[in-house]
């Protein structure tokens, strides 16, 4: 069904956003 496509896009957005937030929070430590 077509609505599956929107779900895939939602997952992609959420995973990317969470990954970037984790990167911002934990990886970039120490820079000013």
């Amino acid at each position: 069904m077509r609505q599956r496509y929107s779900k895939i896009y939602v997952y992609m957005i959420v995973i990317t956003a969470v990954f970037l937030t984790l990167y911002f929070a934990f990886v970039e430590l120490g820079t000013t």
Partner: protein
Amino acid sequence: MIKNNRLLGIFWIILFTLLTLAPILILILGPKYSNRSPLLDLSVGLGFTGLAIMALQFVISGRIKILNRPFGTDLVYHFHRQIGIAAFFMVFAHPIILFILDGRYLRLLNPITAPWRARAAVTSILLLIVVVLTAEYRQKIKMSYKLWKIWHGILSTVMVTLALVHIFLVGNYVDLPWKKALWIGYSAIFIGMLAYTRIIYPLRLIRRSFLVKETKEEQGDVWTITMEPINHKGFQFAPGQFAWLTAWKTPFSDTEHPFSIASSVERKTEIEMSIKNLGPFTNKIRTLKPGDRVYVDGPYGAFNLDHFPNAKQLIFIPGGIGVTPIMSMLRTMADRGDKRPILLFYCNREFKTVTFKDEIKDLESKLKLKTVYTIEKPPQRWEGESGFLNKDILNRHIPEGWLVDGTDIFLCGPTPMMNAVESELLIIGYAQQRIHSERYAFN
């Protein structure tokens, strides 16, 4: 057209992704606050992304045609719901992580002692909980669609406003001019969309209103209304599309209802909707009189015969009043002199209440059309197909060569019927991309 739509769709997806991720990308690009804890950053990052999505929800749900066109309105609605739930968890994670980080943040929950920035945030989150729960469980708590729709809009507006107030009052993370500019941008999108959907668009509909020309009773407790534009050209729709109808009130009332357009595309200005009596609004349709003013907002929807011009043969499968977009397709094909073979599987509970059966008989002489009625509760001495449409019935009537290629199938009816028939079609061997339907039910 399809190629342009695809490009437009890709453009919207990239733009939405960038706008959603902009707050976190800007935080990553820095400068970084060296004395902050990672958990605080995590909390703020999730809150920002969640709120950016919430502000953009006003664009997604704003019924903007150019945004709906590449995906179809049903898909945009499903996306609105799914991304809304995702944003809910992101925003909700923001205070939860803060409480885990430092228990003193819990004091901000006290409305008497808390500063305004916290009061705004707490109220916003409470509203968010109400908005999401009422959207998900509206039917379970027996809330009317009309009441829910009004409050969904009002509460969401207050919620996003308070969240933006919270961001600007806290001030951290938006201290640099370009970071502030980003959030002013989101606020502008949000306020702009409110002005557009609540003031500008209703005004435009009022300027381009329609007049009821005729109302006619059909078989099966269905009423057909014919409408013509008042001092404008109307709109060009495609066979299968739908429009939102507002009657007895102005478009400012936000009480529109969606109905398929049943008339032929070739009739140009006039449009017809055939509406079954299924509730308070549809029950009143019969009281519309010639000369009454109505407002029609359309066209919408990706259920569109003209999207598939290469189809060599067509299978139409309507269930009950789902026949209306199919009627638009059949009438349009008759007006165009389209001689492609059509197989119509028309599913109904009873034969005596089948809508449009006389006209379908008439259309059989104009088109290369064969109709198979499938009746759930057939009358005595019924020789046609009975029960629910299944693969045996389909196989009995679909010519052998139609499975190979070039067959497009249009399915429109109650969701359980569409799910069941789609499964049967997949079992027979039809490809998913050849079966076209629109689904608005979220379950």
